[in-house]
């Protein structure tokens, strides 16, 4: 399964990068969302997918899924959520102020040092 996941993650990264290179600000943020999904799945996959039960102590179980990557991902999810929320409000504000979501129109002018 890990091999399949590697390809799925690669596909997610590819789509994320393609979206991030586009002109629309909203698409760029969607791209970052895909990128963080890819990264989270990557952490999980690299920890191994071979555990047969959730990492909650229960009698008689020895084969837990690796808890450490899960803790790392949980932290990462929360952080990426915070950043995404911030980005989105930033985008919403820049719509309001600049009246556009086209990144090519948002570049600084030559006098703008």
């Amino acid at each position, binding site marked *: 399964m890990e091999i399949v996941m590697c390809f799925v*993650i690669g596909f997610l*990264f590819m789509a994320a990068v393609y979206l991030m290179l*586009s002109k629309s600000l909203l698409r760029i943020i969607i791209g970052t969302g895909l990128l963080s999904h890819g990264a989270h799945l990557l952490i999980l996959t690299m920890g191994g997918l071979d555990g047969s039960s959730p990492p909650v102590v229960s009698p008689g179980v020895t084969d837990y899924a690796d808890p450490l990557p899960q803790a790392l991902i949980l932290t990462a999810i929360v952080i990426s959520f915070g950043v995404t929320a911030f980005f989105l409000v930033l985008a919403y504000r820049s719509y309001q102020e600049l009246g556009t979501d086209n990144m090519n129109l948002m570049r600084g002018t030559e006098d703008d040092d």
Partner: protein
Amino acid sequence: MSFVYFIFIPMIVALVIPFLYKKVSGIHTGWFVLVVPVVLFGLYTTLLPMVQKGEAHSSSFDWIPSLDISFISYIDGLSLLFSLLITGIGSLVVLYSIFYLDKTREQLHNFYVYLLLFMTAMLGVVQSDHLISLYFFWELTSISSFLLIGYWYKRDRSRFGALKSMMITVFGGLMMLGGFVLLSIMGDTYSIRELIALAPELANHKWFVWSLVLVLLGAFTKSAQFPFYIWLPDAMEAPTPVSAYLHSATMVKAGLYLVARFTPLYASSEYWIWLVTGIGLLTLFWGSFFALKQTDLKGILAFSTVSQLGLIMSLLGAGAISFHTGVEDNSIFKYAAFAAIFHLVNHATFKGCLFMIAGIIDHETGTRDIRKLGGLMSLMPITFTIALIGSFSMAGLPPFNGFLSKEMFLTGMRSISEFDLFAFDTWGILFPIIAWIASVFTFVYSFYFVFRTFTGKHKPELLPKQAHEAPIGMLISPAILGSLVVAIFFIPNIIGDALVKPAVMAIQPFLYTSTSDIKIHVSAWHGLTPELWMTVGIIVLGYLLYLTLSKWQPLYSKFPEGFSLNRLYDCLMFLSEVGTNRLSRLYMSGYMRSYLVYMFTGIILLTISTVFIQNAFDMSFAMISPIRFYELIIALVLVAGTVTILLAKSRLTSIIALGAVGYTVALFFVIFNAPDLALTQLVIETVSVALFLLAFYHLPKLNRHENRMKFRLGNALVAFGVGVTVTIVALSAHSQKLVPSISSYYEETVYTEAGGGNIVNVILVDYRGFDTLFEIAVLAIASLGIIGMIKLRLTTKKEVNRNEN
């Protein structure tokens, strides 16, 4: 006495000068300054008897002891000669400047602070025995010279000249630092004396020639040698006392000092001899030739300085040849160093004097343009007399000191043609010829300088001021220098024994063990030697050329202006500015997309090439878990959701598809036994999608027309590259696990040590609680930032204020 502290006296006095200028406005600030060089001159003369015995005075104080960096003042004959020149001519220049600069109109405190700073720097350069402190003072001379050239900073030409001299001398200074660093690594010491003692070992080192060339670059830029002389004529925008002091007598001789100081170290190298002699001679000719093109008095003197510095430089090179011939050899090479130092002293006297004369003419007539001047002899008789003495000495006529050194110079150059090492036997014959031609031109421009200014027809209508004799105070300094010019001719051996021989001792320690070994006697009449006939030839031909000057001087304007070195410098500066500008405009496009492409391409290239070069790709199926049916289905759903985002026409579709991807990820967490992750992912994905929808809803009306993302091959290639890179790295990393997970520890101790059952939660709040703390901080900051963004509207406030106003 510790002479190392005396170096800093001018700098310390400079601190007080602004107070004196503000508080004591009745007295010209220069009078206070004058005390400093006079006292120092007196102090340095007390060392004269010591260096005549061939001894040296050394004192030091530590600067950074842990790095072995200290100020070491090492005063031998050479250093003392330069120190006396700096303080002696410094006194005269300060005296002159008191009468030259107006008390009320000029910013005197600036001037004297810079000048005193320069004096410290120059004393430091000539006395330092430590490479790093030598470099320190060297750059201080560049900086103080920059400040002095740009003294009248409201004039464009001053600022241009200051910048040009700064660029060129600092370039040379940095090269020199490189040479010094190489030297200190080669010899494992910073002390110049110790390096010279190590000279035979260093000569075979692979960096020897590199350090030689770098040190010479420093010396050539500072001493205005070809092709770096171009800053000197532009530095003539400085006040005349500065030109007289820095750009004729002291700073431009720092390069000569450096060459003289390092001669014992490098004399064994033929590169040194060829470069120093050859460049010196080329500069001599070039400067003397183009001096006649100038119409500005100080311009003539600037080119003449360049030319005379070349003369001294070539003599220093010839002096280094004596390393190969030895003391028993009767050739003249061993006298060349003597001639160089002797001419250095002579040049300081007559050139300082001539610059002051040019300043007097400027001051009393209002112009320095030689085409407007003429017939000043009867109006300014004293000035004329001094100018005549200086010019005749520069031309090399008896009974002035220039004659003596010119004779020695011709002898030195003539003997180079007889030297039979390092290919000098083939090319050496050019040396006396070029030297002779250059001397002819020297003669012509000396006459041009003095007779065009003082004889001929007086043209009062062209002069901005009514010409009259200068005040007596202004004439004191040039008169003293002028009388020295004559005095040295009649008593050359006193100067020779007292000053020059100890200096020669320092330049050629491989020849002599004490100053009494130097058996050189300067005489005005040395028989009917070939040099005398050469001098006669110079006078005859020079006089003829001067008489016909008006016939052939227009030829100079025929020289193509486009090929001059100044044009080259201007082009270089222009191109470096415009070129870098264009270059940065080329890749700094301002588009986010470009920068992302650079970054992603960089990541792809670095990673893939590393994997390829290290042969690191490895795929093993050893530790993989089996593929289950519903896992495959979820993976397909995930891919389908992603494809939908890419292909979606409306943004709403892509937002919903992103939500679908997020929920699929949550499903993955469920089937891979991560219940906490699944819970969090579900909640957060819901909130995120809501936020996306909010942002979507507020899109500007104007651009709301929906369209599919245009396919762009470049973007697709970069994206594909990133995807492939991530897959390769993930596969390779997963296949090569070197150590087992540490999670078994958590599994074993989660209940016994931490008292919990949910391992993930215990890790988050107990084992690795710090992560969680700062993740909370991240959320707090994000929410505060969001509130700030929404609540704070500075621009609108400003607009309101503007309306109120």
